[in-house]
């Protein structure tokens, strides 16, 4: 595979995501569960919150067992959920101060989602699925169709544009979801166990697509519990009980993703 690396990625990128002292808890009093807590404050049992910076163009895998808080983190990063405390700056904007309307706009313009369970809209053709975020963004019909078709072709499903989710395999559905996530050209791609429901061949296809997107400069945050998948990332975070316990860089931010790099070397 040959991918062109976007040379416009700055050498010292500003963080696209900056979270500081972020906590998320459910329930009250003794029954409080801290899904995200970070280290405890010195001398107390109080959570100090999670701090994390993710640079523009980075490819971060967030790992952890179930209940480690990785999905909570992803939901907060995707502006689907609000933190209990702490600050979240997305592209320098404090998301905590945005109202619902503005959050919808942020989700639409800045973030592309890929979910484990595909989350396609039922009874809707692949083309219409991919057009949907553009429609919400107010793009004109002709332009919408053109961009949606381009995105579908990119994921290799140009021929399946008229198929509905129940006429597509799992791998194809996930590729439609990837096309839908990238069609608005968002700064960040959030993938929540995108390969969790896929066979190994489809997994390779979908990860290949995500690698390619990262190679063109898009920031990717990928949640997984498989080491195989995490190997594709430039940076691997491990979460245990709502804390980041390890942060390993596997490749530089402004290089190609490791899987592509390896492919390039072996070629």
């Amino acid at each position, binding site marked *: 595979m040959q991918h062109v690396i976007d040379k416009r990625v700055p050498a010292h990128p500003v963080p696209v995501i900056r979270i500081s002292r972020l906590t998320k808890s459910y329930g009250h009093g003794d029954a409080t569960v801290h899904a995200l807590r970070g280290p405890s404050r010195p001398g107390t049992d109080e959570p100090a919150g999670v701090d994390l910076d993710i640079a523009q163009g980075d490819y971060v895998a967030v790992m952890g067992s179930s209940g480690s808080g990785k999905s909570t983190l992803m939901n907060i990063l995707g502006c689907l959920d609000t933190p209990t405390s702490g600050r979240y700056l997305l592209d320098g904007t404090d998301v905590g101060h945005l109202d619902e309307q503005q959050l919808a*706009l942020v989700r639409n313009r800045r973030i592309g989602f890929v979910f484990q369970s595909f989350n396609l809209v039922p009874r809707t053709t692949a083309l219409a699925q991919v057009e949907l975020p553009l429609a919400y963004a107010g793009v004109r019909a002709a332009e919408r169709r053109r961009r949606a078709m381009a995105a579908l072709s990119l994921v290799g499903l140009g021929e399946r544009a008229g198929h509905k989710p129940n006429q597509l395999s799992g791998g194809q559905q996930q590729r439609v979801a990837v096309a839908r996530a990238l069609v608005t050209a968002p700064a960040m791609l959030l993938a929540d166990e995108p390969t969790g429901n896929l066979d190994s061949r489809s997994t390779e296809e979908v990860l290949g697509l995500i690698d390619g997107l990262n190679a063109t400069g898009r920031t990717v945050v990928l949640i997984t519990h498989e080491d195989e998948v995490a190997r594709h990332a430039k940076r691997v975070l491990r979460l245990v009980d709502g804390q980041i316990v390890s942060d390993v860089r596997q490749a530089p931010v402004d290089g190609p993703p490791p899987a592509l790099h390896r492919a390039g070397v072996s070629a």
Partner: protein
Amino acid sequence: MILWQTLRFAVGGLAANKVRSALTMLGVLIGVASVILLLAVGNGSSRAVKDSITSLGTNSLTVSAGSAAGGSRATASVKKLTVADAKALASEADSSAVKSVAPVVTTSATALYGNVSYSPGSVVGTYPAYFETANQKVGHGDYFTNDDVLGSRKVAVLGATTAKQLFDTEDPVGKKIVLGGTPFTVVGVLAAKGGSGFTDPDDVVIAPLPTVQNAFTGFGAVNQILVQASSADTTTAAQSEITRVLLGTHAIVDPTKADFRITNQASLLTARESTTKTFTVLLGAVAAISLLVGGIGITNIMLVTVTERTREIGIRKALGAPRAVILGQFLTESTLLSVIGAGLGVAAGIVGSHFSIVGIKPVVIPESVLGAFGIAVAIGLFFGSYPANRAASLRPIDALRHE
């Protein structure tokens, strides 16, 4: 996107559950159709009552002896109405209000033709003006004339029922009948009016006043004086004219002590109309309730739909659908349900109104069609707004987690 896309999503949503959507529409359909149909039935029955009263002559006023107040009847000596009163009315009353005057005596007698004997409902002695005032039209033959009255000729006009009883299929015109011992020549037969109550208006014999007085009642008081106002609008003016003239001839100063009564077909009509109006309102209320129930059906089904599609709402929100779009989508769906249901209901109501219901021919009120349709659509919007609002205010994370 907005309109076309939203509409397409809504149609898709409805088509996904065809039976459910159809049943919900049926609720609205029944509501709208029953509003249109029941109001049409009410209107039809009111029209029927109106027609039957109009057939008696809306412009006619009946003057009869007796106190209007009723209480003073015992004290004051009641002066009977006479032909002189009628003549005074004809000559003195303002002719712009009073068109014609006909004194009426009513009696009963047995009629004989050949060996057929029959007792008509009433024998009426009057002037030719009576025919027009009482809305009695001759269907065959002719009316008797003023000359017949002046000459006290023994001529008679038969009601349709009386003619049928006496002559069966024979042509009565020109034949002689014997009425209470006096021979009369039949000059005409009235057109049938059809019964609208307990008495048959066609069972009557009408003859010149002096002839009847001479043969039966004697030349004393008359039973009634029938006055025809110049138009339906002048009945009130005619009524006050009659009061003025008769107070004069009866030499009564205080109008409250009047010894005659004036009844007005128009006031009768108003009374009957208010009855049928109540009837129509009741029917309309029942229909409105069924429309309301149809609306609740929409809420119910839209709530189910929202619950069922919570995940889809979550996906759409994650893709950046603003609140207004989600709200619009579900509102469009519920409104579409009500619009289609109401449209079919209008069709059903109009088709149904072509059939006669419990003997009443329904008459569709155009406003009721527009009103029922409009209200149904408004109900779709109103009752759909709660579920739609619920869908729109779901938090994306909760919606996505929904199983």
